[in-house]
């Protein structure tokens, strides 16, 4: 058990170090110019020097991501509850939710940017569209998969629809909602970045996507990598926070959050 845990921490670190060493070696051996592929050390240095200005951009992207995730939870959750209350509403609206989901956001982003006429708002809308479907689909499934005998029991005791929703369907849906939330967290970030790529904003408040684009135009590949590195780090952090939240909320009862018993 202890050795296993050590391997889980050390394993990825060793693989990472090996990849960085190989990267460094390849760039050095083939004398690849830094405007094609910089050495890892150069990227680390760029991360250090450009850190403050990149962090400011990251904050802009992060703000859109968090706002989009919040709207997606509100919208997806509310819609899922409405679906669970009325089959008619579900079958009427669900196909359109699917259409929204399968339409690539890059193809509708230009339209949204024209209509919204505000950079923050249009990026928020794009990121929300990308993020909201997993929450909607998972929560709907969760609300509909409450134990049938428990549903009968609620009926037997004369529970109203809202009582059944609050005391039975919502708790039943929580594990699936949280699984959807973890997917949506990553998607909100991707949506925010992709939308910014399309929008290609100028102005005072630029997110990380604009910085990547701008660095690309100037062949500042090291800065591109530094921004990418920050983006992945952010994605991992979002995933970790949401996983922690999920374990925390389910730890008393759901299989997914239980400690191993031996």
């Amino acid at each position, binding site marked *: 058990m202890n050795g296993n845990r050590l391997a889980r921490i050390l394993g990825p670190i060793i693989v990472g170090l090996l990849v960085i060493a190989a990267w460094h070696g390849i760039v050095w051996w083939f004398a690849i110019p830094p405007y094609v592929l910089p050495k890892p050390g150069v990227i680390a240095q760029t991360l250090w020097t450009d850190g403050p200005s990149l962090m400011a951009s990251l904050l802009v992207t992060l703000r859109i991501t968090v706002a989009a995730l919040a709207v997606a939870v509100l919208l997806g959750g509310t819609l899922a509850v409405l679906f669970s209350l009325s089959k008619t509403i579900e079958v009427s609206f669900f196909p359109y939710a699917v259409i929204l989901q399968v339409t690539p956001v890059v193809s509708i982003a230009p339209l949204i940017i024209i209509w919204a006429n505000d950079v923050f708002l249009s990026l928020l809308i794009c990121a929300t569209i990308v993020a909201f479907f997993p929450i909607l689909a998972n929560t709907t499934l969760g609300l509909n998969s409450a134990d049938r005998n428990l549903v009968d029991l609620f009926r037997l005791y004369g529970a109203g629809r809202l009582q059944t929703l609050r005391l*039975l369907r919502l708790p039943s849906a929580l594990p699936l909602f949280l699984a959807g939330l973890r997917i949506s967290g990553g998607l909100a970030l991707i949506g925010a970045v992709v939308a910014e790529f399309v929008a290609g904003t100028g102005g005072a408040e630029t997110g990380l996507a604009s910085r990547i684009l701008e660095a690309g135009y100037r062949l500042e590949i090291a800065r591109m990598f530094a921004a990418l590195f920050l983006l992945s780090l952010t994605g991992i952090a979002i995933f970790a926070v949401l996983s922690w939240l999920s374990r925390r909320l389910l730890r008393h009862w759901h299989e997914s959050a239980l400690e191993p018993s031996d």
Partner: protein
Amino acid sequence: MPETLVAAAALAKSFRNGIAALSSVDLAVSRGEFVGVLGPSGCGKSTLLRILAGLTEPTAGRLERSGDLADNIGFVFQEPTLMPWATVWDNVYLPLRLRGAGRAAAAPRIGAMLESLGLGEFAFAYPRQLSGGMRMRVSIARALVTEPALLLLDEPFAALDEITRFKLNEELRALWQMHRCTIVFVTHSVFESVFLTNRIVVMTKRPGRIVADLPVNLPEARNASLRLTPLYVEVCRAVSAKLAEAMA
């Protein structure tokens, strides 16, 4: 003659897929009775119980229920059917909560109910921390906490080991003697139905029909030693014979 609590006349039920579960069931249950419904698996026993509870409508026939029954039925399913996210206490509180009782007002009743089923020290445990037998106890406590006029049990002990099952049989019998509520207990076990009940109705294979209605002439107070008496064995033999006839 005690008052009839629930009466079914020529009850029939077919499902949408064409399967006929019940063909023509006549059954009257009087207040205070402990009735066993005995039959082979898939004979429509559960369907009959669901109709008595008002969870399913019969396709044909009449069902008359005493007025005070409407919202005062307890139901115990084959599985414990507890809310995994709620503690034992909150699971037992559920029926009272759905009727608008506050936590403080319900607490004495829940405490007493948990004590009487040996669950006192598990009040704040979660269902997953309990054994199958303990979970079933919680399920029974939840059904009894409203002091129901009619308690319906659908093979509640079928999934338990025999030792736990015997123990719960004794406890259920004792609870009935204490509360004197009316119980309809569905089972496919001859031994269980004879040990528990005062009257056994035997059903045929699907579509189910009642072919025998037998009194169980055993002492009122029953404990483990009853299982060893010739009288108990004799009643079991008679009921088994009826069941064999019904299956033929």
